[in-house]
């Protein structure tokens, strides 16, 4: 019951060969630390210590999920994501879309903006092969730029309280998976994967089910061409995506203002995936067999 054992990948072999001129205890200590860290990372399911870029911002949604987890006692491995998925989930990942040069809302000839739609690409290759996808959502921030004031709404409601007036505040957002890009015409072949009616008076995050796309991208040899977002007004006419959806940076956010930068990082679109690596099931099976 005492801890007298050596760390895996121990240092006894190293102690006799001191080619660097360093002291033996120092070298062996370094090796022990390296082996220790390797074991820990392996336990965390990582091959080596991640080196994320310094500019990364953690989405508020992920922080809220984490806080909700820590506030309640963790009785099992499942992450409590009420309303998202009924199946077991012990890993939640957030992926920001990949930004490209000139990806700003003002540039009408931008290659990412195609008429009234906008294309987003996400690299979701970090999801391990052994993980089972239980759910995936595209989260886009819907901002009411027009500032429809309560007074405006009241006046409008009083003068025209018909159903059509109310409907004029409803816009439809369509989310497509891009299946193929046609090089010559710069057009795409796509399939509709989710659609939602959004009240333009609200400022809130909108969630779209993109599980079919993620499942497809995870299959071997299946290309990931990204996602296309389209907004239609109440009459079904396409309108500019950038009027309300925070899809790309605004021109003002190009300049090095830390406030704008932070705001953009907090409002930029991201995909959230919910997966299960099956560890809980495996340990439950082990426990049963031991019993």
């Amino acid at each position, binding site marked *: *019951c005492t801890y007298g054992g050596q760390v895996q990948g121990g240092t006894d072999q190293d102690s006799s060969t001191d080619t660097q001129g360093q002291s033996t205890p120092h070298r062996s200590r370094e090796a022990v630390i390296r082996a220790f*860290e390797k074991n820990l990372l392996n*336990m*965390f*399911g*990582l091959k080596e*210590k*991640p*080196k*994320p*870029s310094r500019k*990364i911002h*953690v*989405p508020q949604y*992920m*922080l809220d*999920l*984490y806080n909700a*987890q*820590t506030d309640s*006692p*963790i*009785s*099992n*491995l*499942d*992450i409590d994501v009420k309303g998202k998925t009924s199946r077991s989930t*012990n*890993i*939640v*990942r*957030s*992926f*920001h879309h990949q930004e490209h040069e000139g990806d700003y809302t003002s540039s009408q000839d931008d290659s990412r903006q195609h008429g009234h739609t906008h294309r987003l690409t996400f*690299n979701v*290759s*970090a999801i391990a092969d052994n993980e089972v996808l239980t759910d995936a959502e595209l989260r886009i921030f819907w901002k009411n730029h027009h500032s429809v004031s309560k007074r405006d709404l009241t006046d409008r409601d009083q003068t025209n309280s018909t159903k059509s007036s109310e409907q004029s505040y409803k816009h439809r957002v369509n989310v497509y998976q891009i299946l193929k890009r046609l090089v010559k015409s710069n057009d795409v072949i796509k399939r509709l994967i989710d659609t939602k009616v959004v009240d333009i008076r609200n400022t809130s995050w909108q969630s779209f089910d993109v599980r079919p796309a993620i499942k497809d991208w995870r299959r071997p040899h299946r290309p990931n061409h990204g996602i296309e977002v389209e907004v239609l007004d109440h009459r079904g006419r396409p309108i500019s995506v950038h009027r309300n959806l925070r899809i790309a940076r605004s021109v003002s956010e190009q300049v090095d203002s830390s406030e704008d930068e932070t705001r953009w990082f907090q409002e930029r679109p991201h995909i959230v995936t919910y997966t299960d690596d099956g*560890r*809980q099931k495996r*340990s439950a099976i082990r426990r049963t067999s031991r019993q």
Partner: protein
Amino acid sequence: RSGKRKRKLKPNCRRHPLYVDFTDVGWNSWIVAPAGYQAYYCQGECPFPLVDHLNATNHAIVQTLVNSASPQLAPKACCVPTDLSAISMLYLDDSDSVILRNYQDMVVEGCGCR
């Protein structure tokens, strides 16, 4: 009076605090939260006879009995974690994605003799 020293009582098996600080090992560059966590550890004696609160298994009781009769035949039962819980970790990876993950068996909730 006869000069015999009092037998030094070793503490029984129980849980002790052990705080793991990710900052100390330089892992705060990729672990967003928590900054560290209370992992605890188990240490102490599993004396004969084993009392109820030491969470001993039948096997541990038998092993302790044998040890008390003849220490050469079997060692004492070990003081080990008997109940563990999970922690949530929020971290970043090389591709700058943010990951929230629950890891099982990270915190000692109870110790016992096994």
